Structures are given as structure tokens and as C-alpha cells.
């Protein structure tokens, strides 16, 4: 038995400090208030304190940290997007991921697997080629490969997919990775906490005070706060917060579901996505198969999952891997994805002075946790949009200047 464990067993009080400090009450005022203790809100708090010396900050979380989409996601990290704005942004995120575990002194189980987007049609192959060319132009490791490369990386695959949808090739992205989602939230939370940021769990924001077009305070379930800066990072609850400040947006909420199988022997190294079959799969360090599909087709603000989803996903997964027919499903769940019409996020300043938005992360925002935290912290500190997010501002819709990312973001989250 490790010594540490023995220490826990024999001690009457908790022998080690918890991950965060618990604060009994809110202060009457903060330099900045962050709504939402998911990865994004906590990362913004961390970089505000670490890089900008702004630590009189609180993160307000209505449940527990990481309990939103951060803790429900299937953790695929990649940068093989389609638009130049997207590619540059996600590439910076992949770079930030590399030394995050060092930064935090916490194992994030970051695991570089390689990522295949399977193409079953000529049209899909054409999009793969397009993405590969954009990626290469920006120095990102992506290439189109033939079916034999897929077979070599995943020998258990049925390349003919039961005859329905034979695999013609794939977009291969070597940097594709997975990481442990909870650890990401905890790492950022602990890092922010140690630098003076207060994390308040079970504290719900109920209203935001605006006077003369400027933010002046936040009303919560545990009292009122005055502040001149508010960052909204609440993913599936974004429209409700926007209603509080009277901002209209294109965001609608759709459930995104996922499931895991019982643990099995390691047999699948890479991450596989099939846009045509609407499924994706990777194997966790524990041996569970982590599987997901595309979005539920209509708006719902709840996290209940459905039998239709499990059946549909399983059917298509068996096209790819018929031998899985005896493997049991262990858990399934849903998160509330904040969807935008162009599959790109909405970030930065807003028409309300002092109110900043980090939203529209839909089904693809986990990989962006580090870079969104970093760029939003910069945006808050300087009251100016960071250069990497200028393609993602809310006014792109007013100006009919969308950032069309659907081809790279719809199933392959």
C-alpha cells in the first residue's frame, strides 16, 4: 500500500489540503466575476491571475465545477479544422495542451492517439482533401490516406462497413489526442485558487445589473456582488444569461449524447470518426470504449438521454466493428450543446460594456479550453478582443460574415 494511502487511513482529520479553498461568503465586490465553473471559466480565471495579475476574481458555479459539458464530453483534441481562423485558433490550443500537466503539476492523462476522419463518399473525400490542404498551409500535420492506412491503424475494422458504406479513405491528423476532462477543470481551478481567485460552487447567478449600457453587478443565490466586468462561460445556459442583459444571439440548445462500454482489452489506439455514419469512437486508458454521435435534431434544454440514441449509435458502430456485438453498454448521458449556425464559437466583447461572452462551444469546445481561457483573459484584462478571436465575435452575424466551420465540426467534435 502506498504510504500516502496509509496516512489517509490513519488520520482523523483530512491530512492534505483539498483541491480548493472553501469560502463561506462572497465578497461585496470583485474586479471580475466569471459565471460558470466549467473548463472555460476556470481557465479564464487561471490566466487572468497568472498572466495579467488580476486575482480579485470569483468564479460562480451553480452546481459543482466541471459538472457541465466539461465533465460530459468525449475529450477529443485536434486542430484539423476548415477555416483559417479555426485552424490557427485550435492549433494554438493544441500547443498549450502540451505543457499543461507540468503547469498544473497534475496528471491530465493527455494521450496522443492520432485521429482519422473516415470518408465513405467522394464528397467526404473531397472535404478531407480541402481540410488537409488548409491544414498543411498553416503547418498542421494532416494528410489524406487510403483505406489500407485505416486498416493498419485499426485492424478490427470492416472496411466495407457491411457493404453499406465502404471506406474510401480518411483525413489523418497525427496530433489528435484525448485527455482526462475532470483533471482539466480541477487543474485550472486549483491553479486559479492558489493565485487568489475564489471559486464558489453551488452559487447560481440569477441576474446581472446593467446601468447606462455598463455592467455594474451580479445577483446570485448567495447575495449580490458589485463588479465592472463579467465573463459569461456557461455553455448550455448561455441564452438564459444573455436574456439577463438583453442581448440577442443565434445560440440554440440541443442535447449531445454519448456512451461508454464496459472495459475491454486495449485494441483501439487511434480516434476514429465517421461523418457519414454519424459516429465516433476511442478507447480510454481504462479500456472503455467512448462513443458518440451527432446532435439531437431539435432543441431541448435538458440532460436526459434516450434509447433511440443508443440504438442508432450501436447500429452504425457495428457497421464499422462487427465484433463489438457482444460488448455491453455501461453508461449513457447527455450534455446541453450551445449551437451556432456556422459551427464556430462566439467570443469577446459585446454591446454591453464590461460583459464578455465565451459561448457557442456546441460539441467542439473541450479542445479549446486552454486557448479560450487564455484569449478571454487577455480580452477582459485589456478590454480588447484578442487577435486570435476576431473571427468569432457576436457581430459577425449582424455583418453577414460567418466563419463556416460545419465541414470540420459537425460529427467529429
Amino acid at each position: 500500500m502506498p504510504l500516502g494511502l496509509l496516512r489517509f487511513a490513519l488520520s482523523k482529520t483530512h491530512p492534505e489540503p483539498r483541491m480548493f479553498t472553501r469560502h463561506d461568503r462572497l465578497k461585496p465586490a470583485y474586479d471580475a466575476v466569471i459565471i460558470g465553473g466549467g473548463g472555460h471559466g476556470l481557465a479564464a480565471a487561471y490566466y487572468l491571475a497568472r498572466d495579467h495579475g488580476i486575482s480579485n476574481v470569483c468564479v460562480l458555479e451553480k452546481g459543482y465545477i466541471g459538472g457541465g459539458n466539461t465533465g460530459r464530453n468525449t475529450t477529443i483534441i485536434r486542430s484539423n479544422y476548415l477555416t483559417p481562423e479555426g485552424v490557427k485558433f485550435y492549433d494554438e490550443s493544441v500547443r498549450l495542451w502540451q505543457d499543461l500537466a507540468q503547469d498544473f503539476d497534475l496528471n491530465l492523462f493527455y494521450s496522443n492517439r492520432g485521429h482519422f476522419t473516415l470518408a465513405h463518399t467522394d464528397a467526404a473525400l473531397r472535404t478531407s482533401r480541402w481540410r488537409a490542404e488548409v491544414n498543411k498551409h498553416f503547418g498542421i500535420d494532416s494528410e489524406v490516406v487510403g483505406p489500407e492506412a485505416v486498416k493498419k491503424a485499426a485492424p478490427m475494422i470492416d472496411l466495407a462497413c457491411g457493404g453499406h458504406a465502404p471506406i474510401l479513405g480518411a483525413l489523418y491528423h497525427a496530433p489528435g489526442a484525448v485527455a482526462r476532462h475532470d483533471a482539466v477543470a480541477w487543474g485550472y481551478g486549483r491553479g486559479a485558487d492558489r493565485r487568489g481567485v475564489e471559486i464558489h460552487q453551488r452559487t447560481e447567478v440569477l441576474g446581472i445589473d446593467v446601468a447606462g449600457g455598463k455592467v455594474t453587478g451580479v445577483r446570485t443565490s448567495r447575495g449580490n456582488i458589485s463588479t465592472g466586468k463579467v465573463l459569461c462561460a456557461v455553455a448550455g445556459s448561455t441564452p438564459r444569461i444573455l436574456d439577463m442583459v438583453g442581448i440577442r444571439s443565434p445560440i440554440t440548445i440541443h442535447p449531445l449524447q454519448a456512451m461508454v462500454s464496459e472495459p475491454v482489452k486495449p485494441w483501439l489506439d487511434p480516434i476514429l470518426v465517421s461523418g457519414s455514419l454519424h459516429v465516433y469512437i476511442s478507447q480510454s486508458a481504462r479500456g472503455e470504449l467512448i462513443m458518440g454521435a451527432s446532435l439531437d435534431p431539435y432543441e431541448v434544454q435538458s440532460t436526459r438521454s434516450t434509447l433511440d440514441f443508443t440504438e442508432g449509435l450501436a447500429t452504425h458502430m457495428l457497421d464499422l466493428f462487427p465484433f463489438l456485438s457482444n460488448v455491453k453498454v455501461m453508461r449513457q448521458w447527455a450534455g446541453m450543446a450551445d449551437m451556432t449556425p456556422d459551427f464556430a464559437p462566439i467570443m469577446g466583447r459585446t454591446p454591453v460594456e464590461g460583459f464578455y461572452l465565451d459561448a457557442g462551444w456546441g460539441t467542439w469546445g473541450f479542445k479549446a479550453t486552454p486557448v479560450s481561457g487564455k484569449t478571454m483573459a487577455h480580452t477582459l484584462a485589456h478590454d480588447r478582443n484578442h487577435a486570435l478571436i476576431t473571427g468569432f465575435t457576436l457581430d459577425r452575424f449582424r455583418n453577414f460574415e460567418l466563419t463556416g466551420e460545419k465541414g470540420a465540426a459537425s460529427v467529429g467534435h
Partner: protein
Amino acid sequence: MKRMTCPVNGPRAISEFVCGGEIRPMPDPATCSDDEWADYVFNRNGSPGVKREWWCHLPSNTWFVAERDTARDVVLRTYLYAGGA
């Protein structure tokens, strides 16, 4: 399995339907401002609540109206469209 009641064909699996979005009045593109048009094209009421939406039963191509509570995920009422926004 989730169900939806088509006003013509009765209760069917919801996978037979497609949602056409909330019923919203369209501004006149000839007279409205660019901002009003952009607001109509892109912005939505994304908050939870009871909404009146267009739905279509695909096999019979029947368009109709559904009143749905998007927070509780229940369909309250369905009926054929009788005009008005």
C-alpha cells in the same frame, strides 16, 4: 421511444418528423433595415420555455404546428396551421 402526434396521421415515432423551428413573423425584406433582417435570419429565442414550432411528418409531408416545452421535453399540443404568426 419519443412520440409526436401528427394532426393527420396520429401518434408516430418522433424519428418520422423533422422540426422546422419556432414560428416567427418575417419582416418585409423590401422595407426593413439590414439589422432587422440579420436579426430575423440568425437570432433565435434559445431560452427554455413553451414554444410554437413548425414540424413536418416526413412520410406524408404534413406540415403542422406543435407546442412544445423545451425544458421538460414534452409536446403539449399539435394542430394544423390556421394562419397568423
